[in-house]
């Protein structure tokens, strides 16, 4: 069978690698589904930090009245913002992405429409980042209800939560794409996320820890998130170190975003 080679086409508007319409379309799907879950999500993201505050604030608070010059409840109320961000980003991204490509084949449906892997990954990351940007503030609001009085710079906390949350969402998307099975998530959770969560300066300062662990904390995005939030809410901005923390969080986010796109493409396109 001979097939004549058609001439090159006249192109209409060339589509960009990442198009806002595609991002909004994928996110509108997530948002529509979220309208069914927002109550349970909101419940747990408010109740969890309340319990932490009560347990640690009143439990530990009885033993230690202040840490680094902060009232322990202020210390922990600002610290668990990072915890809330982690739990509302890395885990939903890991499980959500895995379920969508493996069991529901949602991404196959998108890829048959004018949506590329870059756009799928970016949409998921932005959407989860936005959610983390909202829910990350819950511990702060609870702490305020318990008497913390924030500085006006606390209004910037949602941005920090978004940047950190988007980074961990991208991390979660990449892990889901790499993991052949959902059981492998246990390695990531116990081997990586739990240690990061504990050496972030959330519950206790890292200065007292061995040097090696302090060095790890320096590359822990949660540590930078905790420091930044604490400065914005109670300590006051310390420009140079705080710009450093923000720069680290942005770099982490960008690196994870590229990793997520790369791994998701390997997973979805053959």
């Amino acid at each position, binding site marked *: 069978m001979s097939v004549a080679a058609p001439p090159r086409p006249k192109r*209409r508007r060339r589509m960009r690698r990442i198009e806002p319409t595609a991002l909004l379309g994928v996110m509108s799907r997530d948002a529509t589904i979220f309208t069914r879950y927002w109550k349970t999500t909101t419940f747990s993201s408010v109740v969890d930090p309340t319990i932490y505050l009560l347990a640690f604030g009143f439990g530990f608070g009885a033993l230690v009245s202040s840490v680094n010059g902060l009232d322990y409840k202020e210390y922990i109320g600002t610290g668990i913002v990072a915890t809330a961000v982690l739990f509302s980003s890395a885990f939903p991204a890991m499980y959500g992405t895995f379920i969508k490509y493996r069991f*529901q084949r949602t991404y196959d449906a998108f890829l048959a429409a004018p949506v590329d892997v870059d756009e799928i990954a970016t949409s998921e990351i932005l959407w989860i980042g936005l959610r983390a940007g909202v829910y990350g503030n819950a511990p702060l609001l609870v702490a305020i209800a318990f008497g913390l009085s924030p500085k006006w710079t606390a209004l910037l906390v949602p941005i920090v939560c978004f940047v950190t949350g988007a980074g961990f969402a991208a991390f979660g998307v990449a892990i889901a794409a790499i993991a052949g099975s959902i059981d492998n998530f246990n390695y990531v959770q116990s081997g990586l996320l739990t240690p990061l969560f504990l050496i972030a300066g959330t519950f206790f300062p890292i200065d007292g820890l061995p040097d090696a662990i302090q060095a790890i904390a320096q590359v822990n995005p949660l540590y930078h998130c905790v420091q930044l939030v604490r400065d914005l809410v109670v300590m006051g901005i310390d420009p140079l170190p705080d710009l450093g923390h923000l720069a680290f969080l942005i770099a982490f986010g960008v690196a994870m975003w590229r990793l997520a796109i790369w791994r998701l493409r390997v997973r979805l396109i053959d």
Partner: protein
Amino acid sequence: MGMSGAGEEHGVAIALRGVVKRFGALTAVAGLDLEVPSGICLGLLGPNGAGKSTTMRMLTSQTIPTEGAIEVLGYQLPESSKQARAEMGVVPQLDNLDVELTCRQILTVFARLYRVPKGDRAAAVRRALEIANLVDRADTRVDLLSGGMRRRLLIARGLVHRPRLVLLDEPTVGLDPQVRQELWSLIDNLRSEGTTVLMSTHYIEEAERLADTVAVMSRGRIVTQGRPAELVLEHAGREAHEVYGSPARLAELREQAAREGWVTRRSGPALAILHAERHNGGLPDGERRAATLEDAFVTLTGEEIE
């Protein structure tokens, strides 16, 4: 509808040239040449494992060919695949609907993904619901729909932006006969509106019923292509002569056929001698019937039909 690619002016919706796809040691598509003219329904007919689904996935660049060139609606793939996908609709073999959304919600998300302008989306969704006969179920969640309704919604999702080209991958696999009839009339309507359709199927009846042109695929290649009636005439003749008998008798007959150069196929409990009209006498006692596309298909692919 916007400007069309140049391929459209030449009346070619899809062109594959020398396409090869290897997965490690496995060659799924082994040098495929296929052209789908605009405005027809082309049935890609082949047994399971012939490479049909791999071919369909290559047309959306979800699978990238190892060798060869693919053009869809005048766009080169994979570079301009996204533009091509914006102008075509895809109905996958496996149901990948979001079970937690309603029909209307799914169609709205896809209307947006297919770049239907905001002001036209509601009308596009309504029209798609009408095509799929799901107006009454517009606000029903997918997990509460029957299998046939889900399949109709899957088709509606691929039509929400009025594509010029529709890819249907095994559209009625696993459905009961009544639902299959419903889908066939839906596909018929598409074709009569002038939409180009490429449909893969392993059901001969489906290809015969819907396709203007059938391309028979076997072991990763197109083995022949033509109108169903032409293919029957060329590869099975006008009549088949069916001879019934014991297995031993049929084995003996098969040997005789090989000696005489008769074209035969197993046909249930009988052996069918094809091109029977060429034999004036000389054939053992049996029953004459019209040759079918199935006869041609079996001859071409060597696949027996259960």
